[in-house]
């Protein structure tokens, strides 16, 4: 497997390929590394030579941004929304996916087909009606409103993904549990879900990234500064303080860090979820 074609390539030909791949890799890594350095530089040092190697590194940008631009508050808000959103979504999608995979749900075919077609609806179509509906019931400018929107808009993909995951489980194990007297909840929580952990973890990582990075709903549905999430807060820092590049860089690094850390530790899960999310 690992030598499908490279065995037919002479060693000499592999060197230029390696060099091209390195150059592409560098073009991906360089902007990120550059900004990571910028975040630790003083503004004077940056303006003197933005391209060069920093003469000294400082944490003062982080302190300023944290104190003056409410980034701590924004991170807390993001963590609350994403945390509750993920838990609720995983529970609701897990129940639905498990039932669709292993129970004779009436109209299962139509439910699955509807979920797949609903995935095509772009956020731009939803934002105006959802804004009006939520403002009518007083949920614009409150975290629970946004959490509900994130849970619901992520559900079609999550259910689709988990139906496939649960369907792959061995039915005889579930039958055995049922014969032993385990009801729906026991089978779902104690038997099926532990077996589905790789799939659940993959989904968790993908949905974390999606919710953490979301901009449109977070910006429109939480208009007050007190409840800003991190990504829209960053977008605003960028708009207001463009000539303070080190400050912008701090915001960028803080926003980008969680998904990057997740990717480096869970690359296997992220990559395997990729094939499934192709349909999106």
């Amino acid at each position: 497997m690992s030598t499908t074609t490279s065995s037919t390539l002479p060693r000499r030909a592999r060197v230029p390929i390696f060099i091209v791949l390195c150059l592409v890799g560098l073009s991906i890594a360089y902007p990120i590394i550059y900004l990571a350095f910028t975040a630790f530089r003083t503004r004077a040092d940056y303006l003197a030579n933005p391209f060069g190697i920093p003469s000294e590194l400082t944490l003062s940008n982080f302190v300023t941004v944290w104190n003056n631009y409410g980034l701590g508050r924004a991170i807390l808000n993001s963590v609350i929304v994403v945390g509750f959103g993920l838990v609720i979504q995983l529970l609701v999608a897990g129940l639905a996916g498990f039932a669709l995979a292993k129970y004779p749900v009436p109209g299962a075919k139509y439910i699955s087909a509807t979920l797949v077609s609903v995935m095509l609806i772009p956020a731009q179509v939803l934002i105006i009606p959802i804004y009006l509906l939520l403002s009518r019931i007083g949920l614009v400018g409150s975290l629970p409103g946004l959490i509900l929107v994130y849970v619901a808009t992520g559900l079609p993909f999550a259910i689709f993904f988990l139906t496939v995951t649960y369907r792959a489980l061995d039915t005889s194990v579930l039958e055995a549990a049922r014969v032993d007297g385990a009801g729906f909840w026991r089978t779902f929580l104690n038997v099926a879900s532990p077996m589905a952990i790789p799939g659940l973890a993959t989904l968790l990582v993908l949905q974390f990234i999606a919710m953490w990075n979301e901009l449109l709903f977070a910006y429109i549905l939480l208009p007050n500064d007190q409840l800003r999430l991190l990504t829209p807060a960053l977008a605003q820092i960028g708009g207001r303080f463009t000539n303070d590049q080190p400050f912008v860089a701090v915001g960028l690094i803080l926003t980008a860090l969680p998904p990057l850390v997740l990717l480096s530790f869970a690359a296997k899960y992220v990559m395997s979820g990729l094939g499934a999310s192709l349909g999106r």
Partner: protein
Amino acid sequence: MTAPAVASLAAPASAGAAGGRPPKLAPWRRRERMIGLAAVAPAIVLVIGFMIYPVCYAVWISFNKTNGLNFDFIGLGNYTKLLADPLLHKVFLTNIIFLISVPLVIVAALVCSVLLYERIRGWKLFRVLFFVPNVLSTAVIGLMFKSLFSYRGPVNAAIVAAGGTPIDFFSSAGTSIAVIIVALVWSGFGYQTLILLSGLSSINPEIFEAATVDGAGWWKRLWYITLPNIRGVVALVSILNVLYTFTALFGFIFVMTAGGPGYDTTTLDYLIYTLAFSSSRLGEGSALAVMVFLLIGGLTLIQLRFFRATEDD
């Protein structure tokens, strides 16, 4: 999984007492169906409440002149007004210009996937590295490129160091669009590389071996075997990217140019936002959203039909 859908026609409460066994369900079977339905119910309620109903509501809003408080039914008024508006024509044209990014992404992804397929030392690491932009928010990527291309940023520093004069990239339409396209390609090609790579991996390696035995060199194999075999995947990736340029530019535009200078970098999805939330013309915003949705739906149908056709080959 298909049986219950048929059986559900005979489901109503009558199943309890009298004979006729075959169409009726055993009590435990009925119980299973109820449990299944109860487990799916919360999800159905949420999807209907926050996706299906809002889409219908969006269509209704688009038939009204409204600021969100007062609704004034005007039928297709918003649609005719928008379609006659030169601004919409300009914005649509801008979207078309952004399609330049599609061939660029495809070429970059093709080169990378063909090279990765050689499974050179460290190819798995490269694969993850190329995927990095996909886990970042468009807001992060947009701001990053805005920083890199700002007047006093590193790109201009490099231009000055090479003896040129610094360029104010975001002051004119052409250069702004160019920078956004660079950001689009940078952020998009990694994912497409992986899709193409999975397409390559499904080619039977024996074909390559046979060709090698027959004396076909690397370029010949690339041209006559590899590329023809992933034609379908390339088409899929192209359409995905076209859809992407109609729905996913908002984040980039929002943080990089805010649609400016003037309306020069405003795209359809950004215009929806501007109409609805900057000028409170929610009816027109909804009408535009519905039209974009129809456009995307149409493109997706073409894509599906196209794939059914290529699969028949």
